[in-house]
């Protein structure tokens, strides 16, 4: 690209896939000489704008996602990042709605394919790999390949940081900072990154738990080997890449005596979760581990959530005291 030429602006919707791999995408786009523009944080308006374009029974994350796309279009970006999520092998299926994401966007927002920046990617739940770049001139695609390599390193660095310093994804990338003072309980928090770290969808469940004096453990703090070992015990492992990470982490939390209780936060209408939560709740019931299932939806009021979290943590604290006595 010439110096005088204007930089191509690529919009990154700050939800769904980028909740997991924001570092990767931002690095890849900026290092290859384009400008990365992030959508604004999701809010009630984002969800409403998106929801109007979609059939009503879609899950909340997709509605929010369409809202983010509309927000990016308002910002006047040249292209929007919409990776084509491909399945290779047995255990890395994306949710069907994610696989069909470019089509959903194309038919609900009338965005032409020429304005989509769609590399083909595969993901095993942790890192992701670009297997085909969109058609670009050779110099650009060379630059993009080196950028992708660098971005991959950075992305791995973030996950290692999560594991070694026991941080959640947004904390490790510096998007989110909280002082953790009291740690009277250790809670295993499960949920997709785009639900539990999204300020609108999650209703700040993480902050609420910290305020209640809980330490939180999530899947990104566990060794991948441990997750796989737990999944290997299942007769039929889960095939969804993000979902299986959660189920594997959940199963290891159930066995872990250091974890006082589990909270699974799922978005209303989430398909993969309907299977995963049932398996997890049966297992938790068999092994007598407290598990709270929270269904998140577009309602603004968070009083119910606070009450349920308070009740759950109080119960866990009482249980812990009882055990000590």
């Amino acid at each position, binding site marked *: 690209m010439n110096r005088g030429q204007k930089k191509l602006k690529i919009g990154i919707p700050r939800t769904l896939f980028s909740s997991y791999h924001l570092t990767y995408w931002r690095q890849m786009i900026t290092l290859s000489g384009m400008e990365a523009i992030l959508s604004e944080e999701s809010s009630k308006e984002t969800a409403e704008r998106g929801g109007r374009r979609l059939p009503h029974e879609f899950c909340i994350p997709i509605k929010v996602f369409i809202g983010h796309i509309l927000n990016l279009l308002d910002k006047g970006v040249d292209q929007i990042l919409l990776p084509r999520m491909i399945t290779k092998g047995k255990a890395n299926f994306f949710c*069907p709605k994610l696989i069909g994401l470019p*089509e959903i966007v194309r038919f609900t927002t009338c965005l032409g394919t020429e304005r989509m920046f769609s590399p083909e990617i595969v993901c095993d739940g942790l890192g992701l790999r670009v297997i085909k770049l969109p058609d670009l001139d050779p110099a650009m695609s060379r630059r993009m390949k080196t950028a992708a390599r660098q971005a991959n390193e950075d992305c791995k660095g973030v996950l290692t940081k999560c594991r070694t310093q026991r941080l959640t994804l947004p904390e490790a990338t510096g998007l989110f900072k909280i002082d953790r003072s009291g740690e009277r309980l250790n809670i295993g928090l499960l949920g997709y990154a785009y639900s539990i770290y999204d300020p609108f969808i999650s209703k700040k469940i993480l902050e609420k738990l910290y305020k209640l004096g809980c330490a939180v453990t999530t899947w990104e703090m566990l060794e991948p080997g441990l997750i796989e070992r737990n999944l290997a015990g299942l007769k039929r492992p889960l095939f969804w890449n993000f979902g299986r990470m959660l189920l594997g982490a959940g199963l290891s939390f159930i066995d872990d005596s250091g974890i006082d209780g589990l909270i699974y936060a799922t978005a209303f209408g989430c398909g993969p979760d309907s299977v995963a939560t049932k*398996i997890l709740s049966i297992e938790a019931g068999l092994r007598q581990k407290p598990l709270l299932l929270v269904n998140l939806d577009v309602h603004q009021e968070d009083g119910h959530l606070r009450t349920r979290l308070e009740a759950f943590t109080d119960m866990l604290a009482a249980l812990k005291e009882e055990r000590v006595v």
Partner: protein
Amino acid sequence: MKITFPHMGPVLIYKKLFERLGHEVIMPPRPSQRTIELGAKYSPEFICFPFKIILGSYLEALELGAEVIVTTGFIGACRAVYYGDLSERILRQLGYKVKVIVFDSPAEDFQGFLRNCREIGNRRPLPEVIGNLNLAIRLIYASDYFQKQITHLRPYELISGTFSRKWTEIQSLLASCVSLKHLKKVIKEARQIIAAVPIDISREILKVGLVGEIYLVMEGCSNNEIEEKLAKFGVEVVRKQYISNWFNHFLFPPRKLLRAADTYLKYTVGGHEKENIGYILEFKKRGFDGIIHLLPFGCMPELVTQTIIPALATDLDLPILSLSLDEQTGWVSNMIRLEAFVELLWTRHDLLKENCNGKVICRR
């Protein structure tokens, strides 16, 4: 072994196959209001509707004494993959000592497939097993053939309900079949039964294509007999999803059909969404008046189709009605939507026929 299976497609023929292999068969009762309620009670809240019906019918069959459940599975992104495993977990938790045999595609897990076959084969000699399988498959093809015939002729019947009665007759005829030679005779008899029904072929009817999630499209009890209901309005319902068709597509993927859908959806999402788009395109080519698209509430692959449907309807100039079904069995609202849809189709039909551009005509 006391065997049961999901209520899907020609169940009497599955019964026949297992009986000939020397098993005792507990027929899953035809899904009813009670089945759906039972299933919904013990299923995860957000799982798709077919799982709830199937779990309900398992529970009813277990009450009748079934010990083994035989079902199919595959590897993919759709939740149908976990039906077998999830229902086994739930039933075990409820205290049933049940075994679920899941037949995966032999291409994906050949060892497991062979193991399952050996178990179901009941130590019978291989030629006998293959002979029985052959007969069952032929019966399924015959049964689907007659079902197609009946749905084709039903809107012309003079006495409403005759074909539905004859259909049960034909089903039991087919189920009584013992050999390939006998099958030929049975087919002849069934043809005569159909030919004997009084019909009025001069009647003017509409043609509507039925697409969507395979269980809801195939099982009359899950879609409240939508084919019969529409036949009463003078609408012929054509669907492509039959067990025999599923076999065919499994053995020979319908490349042409899938390629036609490429302009709308290039990659497969996990269910039958590409086939459905292909069917819609094909129905348009064959001059159908409209399409009805059925999906279970929250179905992941079909929701992707549903986002594409508005564009398809505009591009093809074809009315498409999407109905999302779940365990709420109040059917009145859907009935009203169907009536309105059929009324719209008639108006379009008349406008096109009389070629009066834009002039509003009332049919009755």
